[in-house]
């Protein structure tokens, strides 16, 4: 069987927060959840999105770290900052293009998703991918994901002029070769109201 990899499909997230709870169970950051679950814009949308570390091939968080405290394992997993070295400057938090690292003020250290390294390093699924009910977070082989999903997984990104390749894949339509990130705002489209909003019969009729 080929190697299992991590796939994100933001659009599948249902905001159940299972991943947030499960993440804190991981032994390498026990008690502290490292995953981000964002509510995009509650007043306009029910959309939510999970964000794990994308484990960049050349991590920007490590490049901007003044203490040289962020290291990548030989299998490409970017770890939390080394405790003896991290000086808590938050450069990594502010520079990560995916907004992943978290600065823990109480212990003056940056911590981040390490793909549940205690589990994934021995072939087990990360906690979030184990519990995600909608498949927004999936740990599977490339063959499995290609067989069961529409679209394709890609790991190339562009933020302004900066090209980034990641260990984690995102699901996109088949014609896409790279995700070019530009600023997107949620634009509210007011739903058309029935002539008389209190006339339920009329409303049902219009819906049908």
């Amino acid at each position, binding site marked *: 069987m080929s190697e299992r990899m991590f796939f994100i499909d933001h659009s599948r997230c249902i905001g159940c927060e299972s991943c947030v709870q499960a993440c804190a169970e991981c032994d390498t950051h026990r008690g502290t959840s490292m995953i981000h679950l964002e509510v995009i814009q509650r007043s306009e949308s029910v*959309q939510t999105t999970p964000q794990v570390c994308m484990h960049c091939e050349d991590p920007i968080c490590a490049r901007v770290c003044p203490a040289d405290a962020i290291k990548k394992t030989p299998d490409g997993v970017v770890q939390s900052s080394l*405790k003896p070295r991290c*000086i*808590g400057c*938050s450069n990594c938090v502010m520079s990560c293009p995916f*907004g992943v690292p978290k600065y823990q003020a109480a*212990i003056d250290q940056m911590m981040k998703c390490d793909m549940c390294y205690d589990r994934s390093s021995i072939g087990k699924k990360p906690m979030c991918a184990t519990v995600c009910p909608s498949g927004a977070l999936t740990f599977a082989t490339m063959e499995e994901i290609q067989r069961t999903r529409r679209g394709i997984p890609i790991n190339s990104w562009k933020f302004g002029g900066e090209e980034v390749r990641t260990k984690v894949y995102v699901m996109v339509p088949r014609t896409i070769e790279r995700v070019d990130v530009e600023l997107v705002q949620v634009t509210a489209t007011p739903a058309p109201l029935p002539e008389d909003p209190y006339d339920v019969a009329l409303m049902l009729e219009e819906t049908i």
Partner: protein
Amino acid sequence: MAWGLIAAFAVVAAILFGSRGLRDFDPALVSYAGATVFAAFGLGYRYAMWLRRPPTRVYWFRGWEIFFNPKRLPSNIAHLTRIFWNNFFLQRFIERRSRMRWTAHWFLAWGCILAAAVTFPLSFGWVRFETARDSLNVYRAFMFGIPVGSFHLGTPIAELTFNILDISAVMVLIGVFFAMWRRGRDHGAMTVQQFSTDLLPLILLFAISITGLFLTASTHLMNGLHYGFLSQIHAVTVILTLLYLPFGKFFHIFQRPAQLGIDFYKQAGAEGPQAPCIRCGEAYTSRLHVDDLKAVQRALGIHYQMADGSHYQDVCPRCRRKNLALTQDGLWKAMSERGIN
């Protein structure tokens, strides 16, 4: 290389000066002094290499600039005293990580500091002891050749002076015990620990401490049995550790004080203008931090300028995460509008 040589020469000069032209230098300790000179070279070299990294250079100089700002200096000194007490002496930030880790680190750190405070001045010839001319029961202590005190044998101060390295060895052994206990039982630590960076330092400290205690045991319990051999073994462990000092985990002793500089940097940033996110409009860090980060990114060749003239660094981390989801959504929407999957 130049900074390594400067550091090494500085130690040699300090030895020559402090031992009054080697008059107070103890030749029996020459191997320790030699290894220390090498360690100074390695530390100078590695520290200079570390400072060559753009982010390190920016924050190192910025930290000093903020600290010595005349308007801030008095309050900075007061703040330094406070964080020195909390972060250096008590190491509270480690205690908040875990009590076990703190116990291990506190005993290791202070055992080592105590031992270093005694052995470096002794091996450099800065401190020496001699019996008083008029009484064999009185010891006199000299620092840089200047008499600084005397004590009678058998008094508590004498016991403390003669056994201070035993006390520090016991402290280190307590720390090693707790650290090994944690590293043998904590699944998280076991997953990421490496022999060269996490276990070797503990093994070296254990070797130094236990062989040091063997010397005391040989003297007091075994009538000096194998003392010469044991002292050589002890010297080997100390010298190996000194040689390892600049290149392994112990380098954090010299790197870590940068944390104090970051504290001043954050304070200055919080008191200055804040940077608003260009997507949500909320302030997310200091303007000082964002501007310095952009400079660091330029130096590192990270190009976050967007096509519309904006800068990705001006987007807060939360908006970056939301933006990713919206971008992915937009890709699917565009495809569905064109009727393609």
